[in-house]
């Protein structure tokens, strides 16, 4: 049994790594200015004792729109995108308690000077991004007799990513082009679910997460930089289309406070975003599923002048390995 589990873990790890490599090779990262997806991609809580859930997500975030407050202005001379590959591992320690880790690989690209007489220039950074480790506990599990599900969690965001990448001339990129923030953050998470069985297969959920950011030294010793705290609330409605296909329609509210440098708020940082996120889940086998997702900005109110997400597309692949049943490898043999 132990050998069996080990084999499963090894195979799943390799699959994850391979996926990460291919996604990373094609692209890669998160952006501090808009849509850092680390917090937004957490799956929904405990998976059951001994269950292992692997998820690999690739997200492309196009950040072309420029906003002043809630007013969109033209931005023909610059273009940005952030590509992120996220790997989530979620293990059920008990039926109610689970541990998860999310790791990222990110690639940021900035093109400026488009249409300017001097010509344009594109700068790219790529590397391992920050990661999140969470413990989540289900306070109230859903069952045939209980239509509510309540879970809470907490953890840390670890500064696994570099925050000191330089360009080919040896000049350090600005903080928003770095793969990592360089700071330890506290992360708090909660989820509330409600289903309507047996009347309907529809369910609704509300997931909140909060990141209490830490401080990183930027250019010189004693020069403290702190990204703004981040709050994300996702209200979702889900239902099945067929036995294998279901959908989610989520509305995400994201709010970040202004970045602080030596306790002084930095201009052109922080804001509020409301985004519509339709998801499509396709169960590809008993243990695997695919999620396709998009982001459509509905409203933003940003401090100063900031680029913001024009659209984002993501695709996820999940493997659910249940210890009480035959393994994924065995099932596919």
């Amino acid at each position, binding site marked *: 049994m132990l050998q069996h589990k080990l*084999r499963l873990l*090894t*195979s799943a*790890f*390799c*699959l994850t*790594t*391979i996926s*990460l*490599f291919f996604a*990373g*090779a094609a692209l890669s990262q998160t952006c501090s200015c808009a849509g850092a997806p680390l917090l937004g991609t957490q799956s929904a809580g405990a998976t059951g004792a001994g269950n292992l859930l692997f998820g690999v997500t690739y997200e492309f975030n196009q950040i072309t729109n420029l906003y*002043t*407050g809630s*007013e969109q*202005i*033209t931005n023909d*001379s*610059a273009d940005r995108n952030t590509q992120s590959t996220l790997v989530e591992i979620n293990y059920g320690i008990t039926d109610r308690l689970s541990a998860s880790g999310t790791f990222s*690989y990110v690639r940021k690209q900035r*093109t*400026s*000077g488009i249409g*300017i*007489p*001097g*010509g*344009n*220039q*594109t*700068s*790219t*950074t*790529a*590397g*391992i991004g920050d990661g999140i480790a969470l413990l989540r506990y289900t306070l109230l599990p859903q069952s045939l007799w209980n239509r509510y599900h309540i879970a809470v969690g907490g953890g840390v965001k670890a500064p696994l990513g570099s925050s000191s*990448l330089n*360009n*080919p*001339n*040896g*000049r*350090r*990129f*600005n903080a*928003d*082009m770095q*793969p990592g923030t360089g700071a330890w953050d506290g992360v708090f998470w909660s989820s509330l679910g409600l289903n309507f069985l047996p009347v309907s297969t529809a369910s609704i959920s509300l997931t909140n997460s909060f990141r209490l950011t830490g401080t990183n030294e930027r*250019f*010189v010793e004693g*020069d403290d930089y702190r990204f703004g705290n981040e709050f994300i609330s996702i209200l979702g409605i889900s239902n099945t289309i067929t036995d294998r296909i279901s959908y989610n329609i989520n509305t995400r509210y994201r709010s970040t406070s202004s970045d602080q*440098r030596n306790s*002084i*708020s*930095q*201009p052109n940082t922080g804001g509020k975003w409301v985004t519509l996120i339709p998801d499509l889940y396709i169960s590809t086998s008993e243990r695997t599923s695919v999620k396709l997702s998009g982001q459509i900005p509905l409203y933003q109110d940003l401090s*100063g*002048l900031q680029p913001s997400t024009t659209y984002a597309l993501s695709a996820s692949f999940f493997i659910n390995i249940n210890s009480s049943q035959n393994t994924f*490898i065995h099932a596919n*043999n």
Partner: protein
Amino acid sequence: MLITNQTKRSAAAVILGLAAISLVFASCNVSDSSGSGGLEVDEWLINENEVVDGGPGIDGIPSIENPTFATTSSTDDFEDNRRIAALRIGDELRAYPHQIMDQHEIVNHQVSGRDVTLSFCPLTGTSIGIDREQTASGVEFGVSGLLFRNNLIMYDRNTGSTWSQMQLRSVGGEFAGTDAETIQVIETTWGQWKEMYPDSQVMTKNTGFNRNYDIFVYGSDYTTNHNDILFPIKNADNRLQRKERVHALLPPGANEESDVKAYPLSNFGPGITLIEDQFMGEEVLLVGSSDLDLASSFQLETAFEQELQLEAVDGELPIVMRDQHGNGWDIFGYAIDGPNQGQRLTAARGYTGYWFALADFYPGIELYNE
């Protein structure tokens, strides 16, 4: 046999996984810059380690190439208490509201038939006018996206050479060491400018970009909050408050070691005040007013200039001083009234900016009346 096959598969998966990990890590933490534009700098005349990426990239802050102007008295688009930069060439008076310059920093255009660049660095509060033809043939300035001690580094789009705005010279590339031929710029509030020069021209919000020019891009209190500095200060100097505005005189080819002298605007008194002083062995005259929030400086070079007995004049704007011949002179040093109308004083090489920035650029800076 089944176990053997599974073991083989597991081993293969492990090897594949390790190979993938190696490749992943090998590709980690990479960066690159490429494109048809850019900087061509092998060696810098300033400490390259202090040159930082400001964030938006080359020309990420787009300069204005085709500004439009309107008559000041007929324009009501700007807030009276926000500042403008202004220059005068002959009879042409142009004002450039900070509200617009905050988001563009550079204007390339012609004034009186001359190729002129007006640059403004919001972080250091410095506005510099440059006669491009007199500076270097064919230069056209853009915003490099780089900063040196909080200050704008411009770049020449044709050669990729870099220019330090506050050092008034090229600091890298083909033109390294070349001084900018400056055009005198004064700064004051929009409300004051309207009173002084209602018939002048002011740059309109019709810049070719769809922007909101009513916001404070760097925060509503950046100009007055002494603690709000975006990038580290290397040479802190507490003789004045950081955001106190000073008018500084510089020698040609100014660098970190140069003798620079600063005149706080607060030293000028509420009415028009003249300060006669010596700088680098030359007689200089400074004109300013703390209430009017402006200052300018002149070198008394010619015999005519040295013989002038100038006195400050209040209540006759735009005339700020009169001489013994009855000439009335404006803040740009033009005789706009009297027998010598049309003549002008020789502008000194100087500009107005925040104290913290001047003191950081020129650690040996001398403070007037200290």
